């Protein structure tokens, strides 16, 4: 009996099926807990799923490379999902066309602030180059952020974790930060949440109002685009100044 169980385990552990199924199950558990808690930001479904999977992999002594052979089928969908972001972007674009110039000003200011502050603080506190490059796109939605990290010499999987943590922080404290600095305009509140903390911030903005949600979704898409243009330039310049 033991021998048979062992044989089945050896077979399953080597096939992509097991880890693909585990990924979906862990996510469903995370999503269930998130909904059950009334969508508490701290019980982020991705965070829960990652914690479960890392625990199981460490306990069963399975390497990340073996796990990824199964999980790559889910990971692959990030590409088409990024392309699909064009749909909400197009919808919001139609709705907010008239404040185009104001949006462009806020987009440039916000995108540059996010990039410069994250990289300079991490650099000043002694983080190595690959880590600084990994935190640079932290405000951008994960599929785009990971692509950017790869382009500029960061570690995409480290970026994914930092992006999710940024989203959680922004959605928890964003509205009180905005109230404290005197931003009472719903458009501006939504735009700031989406630009700084992407999809998780957008979920929070939708709780504020529908207008804030629309501006947040727009900001998330635009900042993905702006950061993928600005980050390579900025990191190239910083590399010359900070690591000569």
């Amino acid at each position, binding site marked *: 009996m033991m021998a048979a169980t062992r044989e089945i385990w050896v077979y399953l552990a080597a096939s992509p099926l097991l880890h693909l199924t585990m*990924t979906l199950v862990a996510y469903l558990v995370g999503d269930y807990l998130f909904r059950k808690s009334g969508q508490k930001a701290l019980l982020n479904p991705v965070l829960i799923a990652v914690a479960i*999977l890392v625990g199981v992999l460490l306990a069963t002594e399975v390497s990340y490379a073996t796990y990824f052979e199964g999980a790559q089928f889910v990971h692959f969908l990030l590409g088409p999902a990024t392309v699909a972001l*064009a749909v909400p972007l197009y919808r919001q674009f139609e709705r907010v066309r008239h*404040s185009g*110039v104001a949006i462009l000003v806020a987009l440039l*200011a916000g995108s540059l602030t996010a990039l410069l502050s994250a990289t300079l603080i991490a650099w000043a506190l002694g983080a190595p180059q690959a880590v600084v490059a990994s935190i640079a796109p932290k405000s951008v939605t994960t599929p785009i952020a990971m692509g950017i990290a790869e382009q500029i010499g960061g570690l995409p999987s480290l970026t994914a974790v930092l992006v999710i943590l940024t989203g959680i922080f922004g959605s928890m404290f964003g509205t009180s*930060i*905005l109230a404290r600095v005197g931003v009472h305009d719903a458009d*501006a509140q939504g735009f700031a949440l989406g630009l700084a903390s992407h999809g998780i911030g957008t979920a929070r903005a939708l709780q504020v109002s529908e207008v804030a949600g629309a501006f947040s979704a727009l900001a998330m898409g635009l900042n993905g685009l702006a950061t993928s243009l600005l980050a390579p*330039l900025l990191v190239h310049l910083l590399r010359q100044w900070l690591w000569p």
Partner: protein
Amino acid sequence: MNNRVILTFTILLACQLAGEVITLLLHLSVPGPVVGMVILFCALLVRGHVPADVAAVSGELLQNLSLLFVPAGVGVMLHARLLADNWQALSLALVLSTIVTIAVTGLMLQWAKQRPARHAKEGENQ
């Protein structure tokens, strides 16, 4: 799995493929899927509306967007050492940068919206 799912996925993958090819040919530093997103966005602008099938399937895909981050997130186990060594730099950079970004972005949009005439002029000069 009906035809509209396959059709929409073909559109999404074709845009991504075109994006990857353009990125490689022009040596762009923008990720291929982002170029694919711009291509689809332009196609929607030309078309003037989102076809119902594309709207339904991409909506479905984006509703479950967070699942797609899980495999990459598990990669944190590869960087446990890096995170432990740099936790101060990373947590301070993350928290301070997010606070400043939210404040600057919100204030800028609120300020720029209150001065529509001036910005319309600036826009013309550009």
